[in-house]
């Protein structure tokens, strides 16, 4: 299928004229920064005409901790403990990309075992993140059963992280040079059991949440992303795939062990909230499959860390790189510039939410019913911390 | 010397003579620091004497059956003279040799005696001297043979 994603004159990025609030016709409403319908701490400044949104502005900055700046005064090893906080539900992608950028500039070759353990770690992360997202999407439409299931089951995946990495949320497992440890005894059996349960759970969710007249009624037709919006708006990941674009960095520009895993890029043909949700459900299943493949193939012995210099005074040679990976929301990237000193010159973290939560959200919100704004927001799958970095 | 007291008196006298010997030598030596060492040897002999006096008065008992380690260091060293310019090493050799001779004397003496209390006392004295020998041989091993 060839889709037009090109830039056309028809798309107008001009900011809409602000509604005249003094007219008495509109109501201004702030949603967030603390609101159960918001994915994390950010807020939407909404202007309503009746139930209908006529203007939306995204406000961020409630989390800003300036990680990119902090990294400029921490050593290369210290930074690896900082980066995980840039996307709270998916710290692992930050760990991997940060490490990979440093490794690329330093010319460090990561051993085979670490490559597989990293791949498995990233897929487990995807599974945990999607489980949380499914609950969020369901909850945003007022259905609170599924969030209870998925958030609780996510904790079983976090148990696996705890065993593998020593922590449930900020794993700090992928470190420049490799990973911090091999798998603990009995991990494989427990992981397989949890994968089995997760598959069963996803089947149940499909029946309860997706084959559900209410969910369908509210999500179908909501927040339609057309293929011609994709590139002009920088839309990536499931948000782009749902409208038919088979773009997945894991497949297109394979990294880690993805070129040795058996999977196909999933793309859909319904570009609304329902289509995106269903695509994510399928990708969650795909993730389980990939985790199983990693368990099958990951070497159980051999080194899991490259020979490292003394990290206490590690100088990375001057260089520059941009590395990226497919996170649950699409292209996640680290741009790194080094100048030969003990500190990084500049790190820029590129998260998909930067565009999804601002430019895309502000456009899709217009014309939406106020009751659906939370559902729309979740259907774009955004994480505020990666906007603020 | 037929009685226990006689033999003990002899032994006590021997210790006193040894103490006097070192004290006399200490008065004559030339090397700095030797005087102090010889006075220390003399004091050691005085301690031996005190121990024997305690045995005689019954406050202390000899232990003829206790085994004493024999390092055999002095057995194979040549005799040296106690001259005015005696060195630390030689002073220790003199001391070891003297204790060894005393030990030999009492052991030989005991060998010739039938089983008796006297024999036990003499054997006890032999062990006592063996301990003195070990003291000086250990000292030699520590100081002279330190790097060896």
């Amino acid at each position, binding site marked *: 299928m060839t889709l037009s994603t090109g830039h056309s004159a028809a798309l107008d990025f001009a900011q809409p004229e602000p509604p005249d609030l003094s007219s008495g016709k509109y109501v201004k409403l702030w949603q967030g920064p603390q609101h159960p319908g918001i994915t994390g701490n950010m807020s939407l400044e909404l202007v309503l005409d009746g139930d209908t949104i006529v203007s939306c502005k995204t406000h961020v900055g409630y989390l800003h901790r300036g990680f990119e700046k902090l990294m400029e005064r921490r050593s290369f090893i210290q930074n690896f403990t900082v980066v995980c906080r840039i996307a709270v539900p998916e710290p692992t992608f930050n760990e991997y990309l940060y490490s990979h950028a440093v490794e690329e500039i330093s010319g460090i070759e990561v051993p085979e075992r670490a490559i597989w353990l990293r791949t498995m770690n990233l897929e487990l992360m995807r599974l945990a993140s999607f489980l949380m997202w499914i609950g969020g999407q369901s909850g945003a439409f007022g259905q609170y059963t599924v969030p209870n299931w998925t958030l609780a089951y996510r904790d079983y995946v976090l148990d696996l992280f705890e*065993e593998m990495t020593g922590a449930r949320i900020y794993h700090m497992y992928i470190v420049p040079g490799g990973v911090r440890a091999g798998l603990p005894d009995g991990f494989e059996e427990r992981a397989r059991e949890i994968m089995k349960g997760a598959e069963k759970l996803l089947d149940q969710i499909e029946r309860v949440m997706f084959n559900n*007249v209410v969910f369908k009624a509210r999500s179908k037709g909501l927040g339609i992303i057309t293929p011609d919006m994709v590139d002009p708006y920088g839309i990536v990941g499931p948000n782009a795939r749902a409208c038919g674009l088979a773009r997945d960095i894991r497949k297109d520009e394979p990294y880690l062990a993805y070129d040795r895993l058996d999977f196909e890029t999933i793309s859909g043909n319904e570009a609304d909230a329902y289509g995106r949700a269903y695509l994510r459900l399928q990708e969650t299943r795909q993730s389980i499959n990939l985790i199983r493949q990693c368990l099958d193939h990951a070497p159980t012995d051999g080194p899991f*860390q490259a020979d490292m210099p003394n990290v*206490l005074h590690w100088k990375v040679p001057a260089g520059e790189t941009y590395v990226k990976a497919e996170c649950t929301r699409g292209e996640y990237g680290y741009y790194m510039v080094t100048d030969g000193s003990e500190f990084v010159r500049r790190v820029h973290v590129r998260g998909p939410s930067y565009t999804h939560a601002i430019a895309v959200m502000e456009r899709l919100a217009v014309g939406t019913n106020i009751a659906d704004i939370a559902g729309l927001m979740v259907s774009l799958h955004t994480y505020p911390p990666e906007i603020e970095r | 010397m037929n009685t226990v007291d006689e033999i003990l008196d002899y032994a006590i006298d021997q210790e006193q003579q040894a103490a006097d010997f070192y004290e006399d030598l200490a008065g004559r030596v030339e090397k700095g*620091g030797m005087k102090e060492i010889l006075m220390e040897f003399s004091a050691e002999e005085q301690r031996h004497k005190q121990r024997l006096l305690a045995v005689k008065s019954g406050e202390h008992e000899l232990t003829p059956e206790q085994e004493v*380690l024999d*390092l055999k260091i002095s057995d194979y060293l*040549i005799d040296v003279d106690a001259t005015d310019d005696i060195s630390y090493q030689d002073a220790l050799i003199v001391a070891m040799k003297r204790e060894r001779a005393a030990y030999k004397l009492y052991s030989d003496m005991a060998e010739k005696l039938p089983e008796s209390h006297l024999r036990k006392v003499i054997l006890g004295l032999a062990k006592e001297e063996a301990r003195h020998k070990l003291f000086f041989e250990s000292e030699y091993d520590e100081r002279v043979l330190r790097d060896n």
Partner: protein
Amino acid sequence: MNLRDLLSPFFVWQRAFEKPYTSIRPTIDRPGAPAYRGFHINVSEECVGCGSCHSICQNHAIDMVPAAEFEGRTGDSGLRPRFDYGRCCWCGLCVDICTAASLRMSNEYAWISEDPDEFHFTAGVDDKPWQNNEHGYRRAEGYHLYPPKRIEMDMLSPDESVQSFEEVARGYSEAQAKLEADRCVECGICVATCPAHMDVPDYIHSIRDGDYEKGLQLMYRTNPFPATCGRICTRRCESVCPVGILGEPVAIRWLKRFIVDQVDAKDYPRILNDQIIESGHRVAIIGAGPGGLSAAYYLRKKGHAVTVFEAGETAGGMLRYGVPSYRLPDADLDKDIAYIVSLGVDIRYNTRIGKDIDFEQLLQDYAAVFLSTGLSVPSNMRIQGEDHARVLSGLQVLADVASGRDPGIGSRVAVIGGGNVAMDAARVSRRLGAEVTILYRRRIADMPADEEEIHESQEEGCNIVPQAIPVEIIAADKPQQVSIKWGEAEMVQDPTGGRPRPVLQEDRMHTDTYDCIISAIGQGSDLDFLSKENQQQLAIEWGKFTPGEYQQSALQKVFVGGDVANRTADAISAIEDGHHAARGIERLLNPDGFTATQTDNTGEPA
């Protein structure tokens, strides 16, 4: 609308009969995973207080605080890490970097208190319930944040090395030196252990920066013999290097040598820039060994006129005559000495105190005297037949070779002893083409020689016979040969204490014949140049001086140092004795000025 979509959600009821996910705390305890990164554990006994945890902590959550019970232990700073849980992020980098693997994490994660200051504790010192938790995060086997293995020094192969007196250790290349310098964790524990308290971490840092001139300046602050010590130092520093606890210690000695090797001797005056302002005082030094010349250097820097009296015909003392050139080439020793002499140190060669000039005379003519005459008299075995013409002393053999004379050892040699002189005599003999047997009265592990020397002598083909006690030297059939009778020894624990002692086994005696026997069982001092009165005044114990503070002897203006005044009897201790005596002499000559801060060439207070 599809009927299925209406009915399907009712599937939700099936779940009502399933086991719930949640459990009730605290009724049901849920411990952290076996590798959980929970509260910190420090095995304080194993910790050496290197502070690497403090250095790596990105949150400044760790302070190094004094822990009284660990103060004063060798190779231990006496400090222990104190955690501020208001800042800790439980990343575990402190555990990963811990040089002793003493720092760990427990799997405990619950700690409740209303007082925020409670969450501030010295792990392993303050009593915490999780200190002995079996589970928790440990650094994984095979995971390192600094290279545990040292960069090997290129050495001549044993086959090559026995062919000549060429230096065996070839020196690091710049790339090798930088890699090795990289391994230093900069704790500075070595600085305390180094007798001269050299600025080890700083000069290693200068290698990483490629600033060898700075490195040389740092070394000369505490040691004017860096070329020498860079080759033959006993390197106590390396024995306490925390990097050596789990891996191999940083090759501090080879790094020191690397710096010196990078700097040309002709650049020394410009780099070290020692400005001398004459003080008008005159100081005499007896003995031009490392102790004497070290004192000369630091005294000269203070502007005192220094005269060194040396009995031999060259300077260097035991470094010259006792250390063979395959370990310390003359050119390198001369590099150190030449710079000291260039500051205007007057050395009177072939001048023996007591014969050519009286000690009393020195006391009258000079404001202070530093006495560092070393241990020059070989010890005797005092066994029968020792005066045989074919029994040579190890020192004599080494001195002959150093002076270019043939020691006449023949082709089958027995060396008696286990110290460095014995190893050197043996290795020199190998180079002269002899077949060498080393007889030593204790076990190889007990040998006082450097492990490296023992290893290299074995590599070079010396046959070490341990637990062999010589008992008699016997004339052989041929006059150019000699026989030795020796007995095997058993090591016996001395009930009165001390190390295990060898006991001769009289039923296991052997007699072997050699072309010569080299006796190297130790050496003693020769203080006969001092009068009986002086000897009494100077307080001598077992042939050695017993200096007080600042190396001062019982005579106010006499300072003593080097092998004749310390128990360690190595070059670096002698160098420190000389340096410290120079400080003492400065205080004596300049009682009001010693607190004044002066500026040296590094721009920092000297």
